[in-house]
């Protein structure tokens, strides 16, 4: 069943690429059917998951070490696997109106979904790396072929940055792989490096973290992100911000931090500093943007700063909050990029100065955008609130009043989100968009589920936190971050 979560979208990609070449309509229907089928098998797999150790699957069936195709689904992976399947459907809907080689575009989206699901499910060091790199290739072509003006540069930058990070990660993985007996992850926990000396663990941690921190991305290693997010087509931005960034946070929790063990203590201050820096820096730069998509991209840097901060704090609650922020950001950023993309389709501009009064000209779009912006700034009751609140509280417990700096990030988030809403939705009506049509039913079909997810996670954050609980408690105990 777990293999099906990877193989169904992959088969769908092949099917769409082969069968959909002649007819765009057929390609769309096949792609949507494939992504819905992937969501269905993901649902079945999630329903079948029980206990802290979750499901484990080997192909071909055999004992440990017989094969490298080892997948597992536990509480840590489950929310992200579900998010991937969900955003997979949304991204297909978001690229419904792509005109340039729609079959290839949709096939690449499905292949991307398969690879990302593989990253979250892989329970073998080598398989993990294989999926990790496999993600790069469809994303490279999605940005490079269907992106905006500066797409070729952005695609190359995206590839080189993440490839450089993952090359160092590969050295770290090799140090683990060739020094421990089992290359498989411990069920319900993650990678372990039994018997490795402490100094060695710290080295391995930083090598692995190099790959993950580029992906999250932390401040300083983030410069690929604005380019890639802005230049990518809408569906690409949704997947990029929605799930690809989460691969970094997931990798930290699943691989880097368990391997570090008690040696993690020396890395904590660095991560906390990087996290707080990212929160403030991302928010300030977002505040300065005039391009709406660029604003959303920098807000991602800020939100992911909360994840890095929470990882650095390393208590069970903080780690649970990191998961919550990641899933929430997947939904919120997905919705924001979708809305910005839908607006761009109509107006062919992202300059906020050229908008104004969209609340009157496009009331449906403006309502959805206001909702997403409120979710992004962390309004209580919506998904952005609980994760960031817990992160700040746990940070307070760990480093005291310095946490106030992180809290300032929440204020800044309110600033840039509300400024964007004011400049786009309110003020004098920009006459050039007077005749523009509002969201259609098909577009609401992509927007509404995201909004529903944001509300659901806002009122019931336990959905993610409880699932991830056993894994993050075990991890926190290993790194000495509390009971």
């Amino acid at each position, binding site marked *: 069943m777990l293999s099906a979560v990877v193989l169904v979208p992959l088969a769908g990609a092949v099917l769409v690429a082969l069968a959909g070449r002649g007819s765009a309509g057929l390609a769309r229907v096949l792609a949507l059917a494939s992504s819905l089928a992937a969501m269905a098998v993901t649902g079945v797999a999630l329903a079948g998951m029980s206990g802290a150790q979750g499901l484990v699957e080997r192909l071909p069936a055999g004992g440990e070490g017989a094969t*490298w195709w080892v997948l597992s689904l536990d509480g840590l992976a489950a929310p992200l696997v579900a998010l991937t399947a969900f955003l997979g459907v949304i991204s297909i809907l978001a690229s419904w109106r792509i005109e340039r080689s729609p079959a290839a575009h949709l096939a690449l989206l499905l292949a991307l979904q398969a690879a990302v699901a593989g990253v979250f499910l892989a329970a073998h060091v080598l398989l993990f790396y294989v999926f990790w790199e496999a993600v790069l290739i469809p994303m490279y072509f999605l940005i490079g072929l269907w992106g905006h003006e500066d797409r*070729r540069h952005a695609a190359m930058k995206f590839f080189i940055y993440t*490839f450089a990070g993952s090359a160092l990660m590969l*050295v770290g993985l090799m*140090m683990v792989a*060739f020094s421990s007996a089992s290359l498989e992850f411990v069920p319900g926990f993650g990678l372990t490096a039994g018997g490795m000396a402490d100094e060695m663990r710290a080295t391995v941690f930083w090598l692995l973290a190099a790959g993950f921190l580029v992906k999250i991305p932390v401040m300083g290693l983030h410069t690929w992100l604005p380019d890639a997010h802005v230049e990518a087509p809408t569906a690409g931005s949704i997947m990029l911000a929605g799930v690809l960034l989460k691969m970094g946070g997931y990798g930290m929790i699943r691989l880097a931090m368990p391997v570090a063990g008690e040696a993690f203590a020396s890395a904590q201050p660095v991560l906390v500093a990087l996290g707080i820096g990212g929160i403030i820096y991302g928010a300030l730069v977002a505040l300065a943007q005039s391009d709406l998509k660029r604003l959303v991209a920098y807000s991602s840097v800020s939100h992911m700063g909360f994840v890095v901060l929470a990882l650095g704090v390393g208590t069970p609650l903080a780690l649970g909050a990191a998961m919550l922020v990641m899933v929430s950001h997947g939904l919120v950023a997905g919705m924001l990029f979708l809305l910005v993309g839908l607006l761009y389709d109509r107006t062919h501009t992202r300059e906020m100065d050229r908008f104004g009064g969209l609340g009157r000209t496009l009331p449906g779009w403006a309502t959805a955008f206001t909702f997403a912006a409120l979710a992004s700034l962390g309004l209580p009751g919506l998904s952005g609130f609980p994760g960031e609140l817990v992160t700040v509280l746990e940070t307070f417990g760990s480093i005291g009043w310095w946490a106030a700096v992180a809290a300032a990030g929440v204020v800044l988030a309110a600033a840039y989100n509300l400024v964007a809403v004011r400049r786009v939705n309110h003020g004098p009506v920009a006459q050039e968009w007077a005749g523009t049509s509002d969201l259609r039913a098909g577009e609401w079909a992509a927007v509404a589920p995201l909004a529903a997810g944001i509300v659901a996670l806002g009122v019931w954050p336990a959905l993610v936190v409880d699932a991830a609980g056993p894994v993050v408690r075990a991890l926190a105990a290993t790194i000495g971050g509390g009971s």
Partner: protein
Amino acid sequence: MSDWMVLLPTGLVLAGAVLGLTLDAGERRRAALVVIAAGLAAGATAAFVLAARDTAVLGFDAFGFVPALWMIAGLVHALAAVAVLGGYRALSAAPNGGQMAALAALSAAAAGLLPGVVDIVALVILLEAVALTGYALVAGARGRRSDEAAMKYFIQGAVATGLLVYALAVLYGTLGSGLSLPDIARAVGPGDRAALTAFALLLAAFAFKLGAFPFHSWAPDAYETAPPSMASFLASGPKLAVLAIAFIMFPVVFSGEPFDGPALWMLGALAVASIVFGNLGGLKQTSYARMLAYSGIAQVGYALVGLTVMHLVGLPNSVPVYLLGSMYAVAAAGAFLAAQAFRASDPAWDGTIAGLAGAGKRRPLLAAAVTVCLLSLTGIPLTGGFWGKFLVFGGAVTTGTAWLAVVGVLGSVVSFGYYGGAIRAMYLDEPRVPPVPAAGAGEATAEGAVADRTAEAAVVAVALVVVAAGVLPLFDGLRFFTRFLALPF
């Protein structure tokens, strides 16, 4: 019987080559090409069957083949067969096409015996046979530039031969050993200055043959000017064979004191220099074939990382380097052959990377296959090239030379700058000149732009092998490779 068994694959290849030359002399060039390719394919099959028998085969006190070495020999023959078949259309159009194919077969026959050679006289003869056919193949394009490249290749190769013979003379003469590698290994004692000199000379000679920095300067010209199908063989088959014998010779003959320190230093320096120079040089290239030639320098550097590691852990750990070498050879053969197919599909192509713009649209299957080969050369997972690099660099990590692994992976990142540049050109760049034929030349262009189906099919076949080698290990944990590539001694 066993003695002659060693020569079976070579015999089949030679028979095909001789018959082919006869047919070619009778003006039946297409038949000649088919016969030569069939002989090579038969030789490859024979070698693979011998590998699968899983026993060592010895012959004439000069050869000692184990399954892994038969695999290499079979691969060398197969690569030559792919080159001849892939170049079928171009070779059958060239006046000397039949002769070039026969030369490639002769080169493959010699290169196929090389990995199993034990006697140093046979070693020199085979290496020279490979080199001489190589000079002739580079000159085969019959232009002024290719003459110059072949001359450069010849002169530098002659120096390399001199170093090789001198090194072997030092070993044989000053140590009073026999002529076989095990004899020499026994005679080389601790603290032998002469042996250390021989080591350095041999290393330089092999570095010439492999095109490692700083002995590389013949390579870019040779591979750029040779006919693409022949370049595809030259850059893959002979290189793989020479790597294979180097992987055996250095650890067998020069193990232990006094080589540990200096050997490690020299091999490591050569590896790092090749990786750095090859990758940085590759970034600067505008010509597709030249870019591949520079990338070949870097790839030899990765293989030398493996050789350095083998010095530390010994011969049984040779699977990684064999895998790396094999996967490089296969992917490089595909990438070079693609130049042939590109030229056929667009006669106006000037051989530059930028000139490939739009190839993804014009020839989607070909472009996809080349992309697979280039990603394999970069070392991206799901291609065979990844496992080769993974195991070689992994070996470096475990033997305390992690710095070599770091140089290697960073080199791989840089290499995407030019491999990815070619991919970017094929898919993302718009063709600079729209492919609208001018009024007068319309007919000629339309006639010229015929798809070279055989070259395209050869590249696609190579790409399928590369992907299979990349995916299969996920399900059987490299057992497929270790079964065939492990050296049982």
